[in-house]
């Protein structure tokens, strides 16, 4: 069992969990993910790592309640434990001194961008963060991101914080300051990553995105996580999750994310039914 050492509600449906997983914590690097399972009947859920503490032996993940399993996770308390916690999985981020880098996190994507920004800053990059969310109350980890970036630009869809608009507007704002951007990391909803990649492609700015497709085993065995990269099929779990954003077929990624939508809705409905004390 992997105990929850710390739980923090970051936004109405977003929870941070610091989990005791000492062996994973020894090896994990920014950009990698873990797979968790809450109980014997649970799904294997892939989650990109937000933070790790090798001394304490903990891994921090951030979970947004978007379906049955994530709702179950977010109900966990500091007395709870994960049944399974597997990792580190995937290829780590290529951390080197690129010059000036922009780290874009949209919504929950701010969590996985955090350790990447920190590592990029540690090796000498000038790090500008762009944080996006629908509104100010849904914006997470702003303070943490300020601590690992030289500059933070916030964009909210409703304008309740920072510039009004999307993360691409934040990116445009940085370019308008006359800065030369050497590389961009963008993590968030697929539509957001697609928009960033389309924005940077004509400018020729290297852009890395982190894909979060449907997965089962996370070790290359099942192929559920296939993504099309420059018309070549790759497995996000072992070849990624990070890919060159200019080569990713985002429309395919969105289509594949809808694979089990009906089933997710059914499971979700069951959860609500259980909440009301009902039984089938």
């Amino acid at each position, binding site marked *: 069992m992997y105990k929850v050492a710390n739980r923090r509600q970051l936004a109405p449906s977003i929870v941070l969990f610091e989990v005791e997983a000492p*062996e994973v914590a020894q090896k994990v690097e920014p950009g990698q993910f873990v797979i968790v399972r809450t109980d014997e009947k649970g799904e294997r859920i892939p989650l990109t790592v937000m933070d790790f503490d090798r001394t304490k032996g903990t891994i921090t993940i951030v979970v947004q309640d978007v379906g049955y399993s994530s709702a179950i996770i977010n109900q966990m308390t500091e007395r709870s434990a994960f049944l399974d916690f597997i990792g580190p999985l995937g290829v780590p981020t290529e951390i080197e001194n690129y010059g000036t880098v922009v780290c874009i996190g949209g919504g929950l994507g701010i969590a996985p961008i955090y350790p990447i920004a920190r590592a990029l800053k540690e090796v000498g990059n000038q790090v500008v963060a762009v944080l996006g969310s629908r509104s100010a109350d849904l914006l997470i980890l702003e303070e943490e991101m300020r601590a690992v970036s030289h500059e933070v630009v916030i964009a909210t869809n409703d304008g309740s914080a920072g510039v009004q608009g999307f993360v691409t507007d934040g990116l445009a704002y940085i370019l308008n300051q006359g800065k030369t951007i050497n590389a961009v990391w963008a993590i968030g909803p697929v539509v957001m990553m697609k928009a960033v990649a389309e924005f940077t492609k004509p400018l020729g700015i290297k852009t890395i995105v982190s894909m979060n497709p449907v997965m089962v085993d996370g070790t290359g065995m099942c192929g559920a996580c296939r993504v099309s990269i420059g018309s070549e099929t790759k497995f996000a779990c072992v070849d990624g999750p990070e890919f060159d954003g200019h080569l990713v077929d985002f429309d395919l990624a969105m289509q594949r994310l809808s694979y*089990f939508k009906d089933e997710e809705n*059914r499971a979700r409905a069951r959860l609500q039914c259980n909440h009301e004390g009902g039984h089938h």
Partner: protein
Amino acid sequence: MKEKATRHEMPCQDPVIRAHNFDEVALGYSKETAVAEAKRCLQCKKPLCVGSCPVEVLIPQFIKKITEEDFAGAGEVLKEKNSLPAVCGRVCPQESQCESKCVLGIKDEPVAIGRLERFAADYQPAMGKSKVSVPAPTGKRVAIIGAGPAGLTCAGDSAKKGHAVTVFEALHVAGGVLMYGIPQFRLPKEVVQSEIDNLKAMGVEIKVNTVVGKITSVDELMAEGYDAVFLGTGAGLPNFMGIPGENLNGVYSANEFLTRANLMKAYRFPEYATPIKVGKRVAVLGAGNVAMDGARTSLRLGAKEVYIVYRRSRTEMPARVEEVEHAEEEGVKLYLLTNPIKLNGDDRGWVKSMTCLRHELGEPDESGRRSPVPIPGSEFDLDVDTVIVAIGQGPNPLLTKSTPGLELNKRGNIVVDPETMETSKPGVFAGGDIVTGAATVILAMGAGKKAAAAIDKYLKNM
């Protein structure tokens, strides 16, 4: 003089009923039938059956115990050589191994060795735990990577020699393909678990959730004090056809489909949280045992029409005859000499049909099988809403890439000395699908057994 009796059939669930449940298809022998079948064995002085068993089960001896109605004794004899007898009694291709050499088979039908093995192996758990004799510890430590058939066999045999064994498994349960691949109705997971519990009772430690190559490495394990390492990581990377439309929704690799159904128990969704989606018309590409498993699982999940689509003819199908028969009895249809060239999707990105080309058999190819030759202009569309790709798998590079000094062949399989299963890296042995490419459970077990013997020798000479 022995009375001549014919081979005893094993009762099965009715095909019409079983096509809609996940209970075991074959029901096993009763005591009476087992004894009667056992009595058919001629107890050859020089048994040919044993020589064609990859793990050299003492076949006449265990069968003799059954004739004496010493069923627990029969189980003990099995376990001397075989760490997973209840598994082998169910999934071994006996017809091409032990039973193919049975002297009775020359004029009559061979002794049903597989069914008797299953009977004897099942008897013990039903009667409570067998006594476990743990040998004196040698002080040597063996690390085994992968808790599938090869790894578990190597673990069992190494523990029997008194070595301290730790098995590292990437998934959350041990068993490998026995848990994620072979369906419940062919190999109940309780049977596999009970075999694994037997190994644990012998002192084998199993660490699940441990992806070697990521959380640790072979070199680190050796530095931690493991004296020998066995790599049994299996064939883990599913092959696809490489035709347009394979990333449409509704297209699974057999690995994904079966892992959802078996390991994650998606057939009990939503009680179990992992979903699986099966449409009304399913095409399974390929004709091996995995393809049959995919087809029969689809039926059980509610598909109305299930097709096996295979480019060669019935004779060349790699699946066991019994598996094909079971599938057909349940209503699976065979589309032979047919190969898809394109999967067609609807406007929402779901597969809706498959464009196929008919084939005819030409000259034999390098595998000795007559090769399929496409018939020009024979394209036709087959309406399907689910496609399961079961055309084999390649080696998973996670472990091999993280292990310097390991010689691989051009396909990425580990190169070993065929006698000792020793790799190019000292103290490191390998066996099973990671060496041979996708093969059978029993061949992997045979490799695990051979490696355990070689590891024992290696440790003694250290």
